[in-house]
């Protein structure tokens, strides 16, 4: 940060690495969606233009194309170094997306408490937290989240399929609370 807010505000709006690639991808997506406007929306012969099912989809998608194109023009110059490297760095988020989706898949199978503890501990290990204190903190985080949301606030998360193998009394308790 600099000594003056106005200077930082200008820096904030200077093109950033990756913005050009983002602008190209966004415009491409908008153009594809615009090409589908006729197929994916209806225009009935009766009724006013504003009441057509197509009208607001058209407003949105035409706006995306027009503003997207103008945005692309503004980021063409000046060129910013590191465009491709930044775009590649976006792919690093996919690892955590996959981890998240595996967690989503695991909850109905293993149950909320076991899946959450496994998720926090494995993710902590992946992030480089290998000492005992950090791993205990990861377990505690998982347990506290389950206790607050499922046990105390009773949010709707189904019991795990694995709970079916528990004795009857414990099974219903685990399904309801963990």
């Amino acid at each position, binding site marked *: 940060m600099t000594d003056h807010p106005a200077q930082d505000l200008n820096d904030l709006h200077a093109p950033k690495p990756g913005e050009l690639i983002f602008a190209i991808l966004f415009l491409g997506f908008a153009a594809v969606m615009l090409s589908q406007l006729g197929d994916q929306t209806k225009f009935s012969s009766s009724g006013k233009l504003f009441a057509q*099912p197509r009208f607001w989809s058209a407003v949105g998608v035409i706006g995306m194309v027009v503003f997207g194109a103008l945005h692309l023009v503004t980021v063409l110059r000046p060129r910013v170094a590191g465009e491709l490297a930044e775009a590649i760095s976006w792919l690093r988020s996919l690892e955590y997306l996959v981890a998240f989706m595996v967690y989503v898949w695991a909850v109905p199978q293993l149950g909320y408490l076991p899946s959450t503890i496994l998720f926090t501990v494995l993710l902590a290990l992946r992030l480089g937290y290998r000492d005992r204190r950090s791993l205990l903190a990861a377990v505690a985080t998982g347990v506290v989240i389950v206790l607050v949301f499922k046990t105390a606030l009773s949010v709707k998360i189904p019991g795990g399929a694995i709970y079916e193998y528990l004795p009857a009394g414990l099974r219903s308790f685990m399904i309801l609370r963990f």
Partner: protein
Amino acid sequence: MDLLFSGIVILARWDVLAALLIGSVGGVIIGAIPGVGAAVAIAILLPATFSLDPIVGLTALLGIYGSSMYGGAIPAVLINTPGTAVNALTTYDGYPMTKRGEGRRALSLAYSASFFGGVFSIICLIVLSPVLAWIAPQFGSREIFLAALLGIILVVLAHRGQIFAAGALACFGIWLNTIGMEPIQYTRRYTFDQSWLAGGVDLIVVVLGLFAISQAFLLLVDKDNAPKAAALSGGLFQGFAELFRHKRVAATSSAYGVLMGMIPGVGEFTAQFMSYTTAQRTSKNPGLFGKGSPEGLIASEAANNAVPSAAMIPLLALGIPGEALTAMMLSVFYVHNVIPGPNLFQNQMDFVVALYIALLILNVLVVVFLLMSTNLLLKIIQIPTRFLGMTILTLAFVGVYSLRNSSVDCAIAAGFGVFGFILKRVNLPIVPIILGMVLGGIMEAKLRTSMGRVKTPLDFIDRPIAFILFCIIVIVLASHFWRVWQAYQKGRK
């Protein structure tokens, strides 16, 4: 007086007060942790409040909404890292004061200025209530359509230097909102024959993806960082006395916060910069601004804390959110069967008064909590950022999955998480998408309703408020294009 009593009765329940206390304290803690923020917390907790009584869920989330900026000042002042984005300006004067050994004084001033801004804003809200109660019922479909259109225009124009990107993202939000079954003729829009798209894209799923999951990805991918802050010794009351010496700055900045908060799409950043610039221009010591000026700190904190209550004005009176947090609060209201808009002021004024009282109580609770537990909060803000990312991702699951137990929702939210992550990396705004979704839905419904009675385009603006709103839209657009033209001419010379 009857309304005041009714409002107190609504709040006088142990579970409501507990929710307000938990929300307020939780909001301060969340605001104090750099990288979390109220938007993430509200997005995660919103589905968890579905099972609660409406007033309990609402007060808990209102507590987080109204108190997070208080907490955000702590890391801004002590470690030069704003807890929430709107505390960024606080670092300019707060951190230099800390470097001079005046951390306690700076924090105390930040708390007192925040409290002043918050209470000033609530008083304005109360004073304006009769006016709102009179004006709100005069807003019919076309007036609400024009107000929503003005909101979208202001949101886009508020992103100076990024107007085209903001426009594209706002239109993306409008388009997203149209996906699924259209409610009048029951035709499908952009579903590509996929049954999971027939119900549309849920706003809460998008919000969780764009705010919570993207933030988790951002923290997980970046290098680990555990901020360090030294403990403070001594009391934090002195700022209240010092604030009194700078009462003009506090009042002007709070007034800017109220004014900017009331205008949809403008919000804290504009309020802060205007109040900061005014405070600097009128100060006897302008050279100290940016180098540890108490007036600069007061201007920043009073302005940003005056915004949340003021932003409730268009939300409560017209059902029009002005920024991302109020858009989320609108979802909160809808989920709990409270429909903001003209009818709220006509039929549920006691509920509105209860919200005002709740806002007032939360400001008092927060200041008392901060005065007693700042050193405890200093320990919490030292959580390593990647560990924080892991926690946010785990919490985001609860938010999305508990909506409908749908793994498709989780996949959509994760997809928006990656999209939000990219937007944050390239420093493009997320808020226009959310407001595009919310205001796009309002505009579609209201335009359809209003066009039934409109024969010629002029009929659309033949009522006084509609005409005034139309004139404001024309003036806003004309002044923008005039500025662009002047900048172009200047560039040619």
